[in-house]
């Protein structure tokens, strides 16, 4: 098993494209190392992207934010300006595992692990984030909702990797939030996760919204119907009920060791209401 830690994206792409057998990108490693130890994967090459500047940098860009794919949750949490703009994204990233995991886990790894229950993904999708994908045929920006196409399946092709994410400018009167349900208070994989991002006009009416659901389908869902259910409202009870109903309608979960179908559908509606209320309150204060 080879290990390489290139210092440029081009070098990383070349290594990945040139790999004989399976090649894996190493960012935080909190999923990859577990899979290695459990003999679930046996790559020929591991490409560590933590020496690549773009992948390790958080910077304001065109009024929005550029976040390196290998920046850890703990580092995001310590960035107060980012937290002001995108509290939901930062909270979501900081719900991934323990404090120890926070010291390693990254947005890039969380997305590319290809789990429908990844905590940071619904928040990124709700935020309208794009992923900067670089590969042998150059660089392209891909909406985060289009990166994962199924369990452990990505739309990335051989040689491609995610260098960074772009979060759009955070306008006034707008905010995001993320909540997930787990059986314990910490350390579990999301049974249901909901990310919502919304904007208000001066009168407190919701003008735009994005609602994303995790762990209720084969991939993380963007649910426009749920967003429509609250746009034009002040998030009154009726709007909240419409939101819950639309969120539940969008669910197509499975029964597994973490939750039942009925439970996931039910709680998706409950969390949607709770998350919307948090986002709405935050937006009013901005």
């Amino acid at each position, binding site marked *: 098993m080879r290990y390489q830690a290139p210092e440029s994206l081009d070098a990383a792409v070349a290594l990945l494209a040139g790999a004989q057998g399976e090649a894996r990108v190493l960012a935080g490693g909190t999923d990859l190392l577990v899979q290695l130890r*459990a*003999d679930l994967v046996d790559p020929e090459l591991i490409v560590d992207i933590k020496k690549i500047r773009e992948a390790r940098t958080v910077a304001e860009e065109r009024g929005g934010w550029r976040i390196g794919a290998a920046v850890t949750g703990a580092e995001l949490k310590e960035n107060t300006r980012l937290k002001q703009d995108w509290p939901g994204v930062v909270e979501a990233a900081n719900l991934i595992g323990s404090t120890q995991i926070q010291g390693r886990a990254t947005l890039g790894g969380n997305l590319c692990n290809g789990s429908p229950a990844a905590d940071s993904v619904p928040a990124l999708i709700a935020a309208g984030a794009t992923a900067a994908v670089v590969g042998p045929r150059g660089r392209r920006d891909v909406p985060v909702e289009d990166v994962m196409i199924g369990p452990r399946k990505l739309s990335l092709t051989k040689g491609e990797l995610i260098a960074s994410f772009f979060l759009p400018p955070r306008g006034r009167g707008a905010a995001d939030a993320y909540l997930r*349900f787990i*059986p*314990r*208070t*910490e*350390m*579990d*994989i999301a*049974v249901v996760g909901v990310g919502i991002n919304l904007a208000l006009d001066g009168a407190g009416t919701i003008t735009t919204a994005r609602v994303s659901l995790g762990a209720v389908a084969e991939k993380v869902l963007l649910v426009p119907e749920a967003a429509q259910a609250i746009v034009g409202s002040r998030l009154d009870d009726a709007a909240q009920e419409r939101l819950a109903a639309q969120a539940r309608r969008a669910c197509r979960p499975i029964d*597994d*060791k*973490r*939750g*039942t179908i*009925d*439970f996931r559908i*039910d*709680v998706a509606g*409950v969390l949607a209401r709770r998350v919307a209320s948090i986002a709405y309150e935050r937006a009013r204060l901005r």
Partner: protein
Amino acid sequence: MATMLTTATDLPQTYVGTRTVRPDGVDKVTGRARFGADFNLPGQLVGRVLRSPHAHARIVSIDTSKAEKLPGVKAVVTRDDFADQPSEFIPAGEMMINYRDMVRNILAREKVLYEGHAVAAVAATSVAIAKRALKLIEVEYEVLPPVIDVMDAMKPGAPVLHEDLFTVGVEPKPDKPSNIAKRVEIAQGDIDAGFSKADVIVEREFKTQPVHQGYIEPHATLASVSEDGSAEVWCTTQGHFIVRAHCARLLGMDIGKVRVTASEIGGGFGGKTVVYLEPLAVALSKKAKRPVKMVMSREEVFKASGPTSGAHVKVKMGATKGGRFVAAYAELRYQAGAFQGSPVQPGVMCAFAPYDIDNVKVIGYDVVSNRPKVAAYRAPGAPISEFAVESVVDELAKKLDIDPVELRLQNAAREGTKAAYGPKFGPIGLIDTLHAVRKTDHYTTPLEDWQGRGVASGFWFNIGGETCVSLTVNEDGTVSLMAGTPDIGGLRASLAMVAADELGVPYDKVRPIIGDTGSLGFNFLTGGSRSAFSGSMAVVEAARQIKADLCRRAAKLWEVPVDQIEFEGGSVRPVGDAATKAKPMSVADMAKVAGKTGGPIGGYGRINAQGAGPSFGTHLVDVAVDPETGRVTVLRYTMAQDAGRAVHPSYVEGQYQGGAAQGIGWALNEEYIYGPDGKLQNAGFLDYRMPVASDVPMIDAIIVEVPNPRHPYGVRGVGETPIVPPMAAIANAIENATGIRFTDLPMSPPKVLKALKERCRNKV
């Protein structure tokens, strides 16, 4: 003998009852302490186990030839390397062991009986080579249908695990094999007459899931067998003398040729009273003629080491309007895992132990199924049956409109009460724990909507058993103490405190260690809440020998009759007519002249400790239920338990709090989750959900002290009772919050939400 010891009153007590710093503490906060996986030897090999991918299958053939040819592989063992054993229960230590089952659990013979069942083991020069070797072992299986659930396993026509297993304890003797290994029963009075006197009867069925002891340290062992056939083993265990007995028996070695050293142990809770890796490591080392180290992965711990039983329990209790229990009946069906030996017997005996009831009948079934063989887990069997009983008691209290603590007080066992399992209780503390809990402000603090309060009591017998301790007074008057029961939770501190008080020397001048099997006579294992109870008895015995010897030596030195010398406050002193003849001499003074007065000074306590006093406890818990998600949050927890005498209050509280937290996990989230293929789906800490720090509140531990008259300091075992009440206390609290009685553990969010929804539907 223990029975010769007198009672607490005439004993010096300086350290006992205080909160000293444990002697092994500094090593444990600096990373110096050596646990099972921290031992290494030059030239050691890596041992790995090949485990069954099937829950139930016949082994057609095992071909290890390819693996043996792989460079770097030094030994491979299979069923053929272990002689078969007769199917008889024979004593190993104080436990009755069926070695026919044990040899099959260590390496499968005719069949694999659960996913993860060991099939072969290899020793190689590296992890990578050992892993490759396992892949090269060819095992042909004839896959059989598995049976996982205890009720399914009891059905006629269920897949049968053992063609030679016929139910014991039923008449007439069955002519067909089944998965029901044993039927046990206890009864007293007339159960039907009892129920006919009842004004209120509650009958319910309960279900519990297997839960794992969850010790953080995986099983680990290092074995080295020399050319002369003598073996050295270092391992993490609750009883190294038991490991020695099992290894010697399974490998046909003389007990005297096997020397086992217990490492520091990273938690056991009953799960390290059995052997898994040790016989394999010894067998591999014997073949390879090199040391072999084996460490389980967490997945192996979950799949192949013993959880406790899952069970189905039926309880029926009757009471008079006035709140007197007049009849109690229970049926327990305990799942034993792949081999017989669930803790259903103690479950049967404990079920109604906390109460004074004239008419009792309890029936228990020991049932095998395609799961790992259960191992002891804290008060084995009791938490399951007492969860059911304490839930029913709560429901009776509600039906009778009597405060749940009051109802328990009205029926509580006390000194002289005839226990449901026969004998009369001596002095016991159940009533004191009930009063202690009711006195707290916790009991009367108002609750909000969707919050509830629950109470439950619990019982465990506690045991004594064979125990050796040696005390040596060194040349400078310091004292070396050697015990033979692994120290899981502060034993060395407790024994050093007792030794210091007995000999009147400073606590920090006593250095306690855990000796290997070559250094002391037989010791039963650390379990049954016995190590501090029995060990302190043995220390007292050893100290008495030293004191008597010092008096004899002083008599000769001072030329006065020995009856005019006494040992008091750490010194020998002349008394009576001889009082002026000599100055008192301290233990240290005597140590200086030891050589001149007969040689080294020491005592050796060798006892079979009897007189263990049962420990009762009562737990009080507040919960909050989220009506929209079914999440149950433990808000506040208070518990009271009888310790007899707390030698080291901090470690007694620690036992209380740890048991309560384990019970919280058992109640709310812990369970073994199997797929239809009979394979375990949550063999890791991620999805086997033990409580984390943010899941639990502070746990207020109240130590009640009703001295055990049979112990020189009044000590009772305290380790096991704490895990008995939590499940019922929490179920009762959830009922108090929601009005819904939950009878199926764990009470996890999906189950709770489902019940809440169903109630809404029914109301509409």
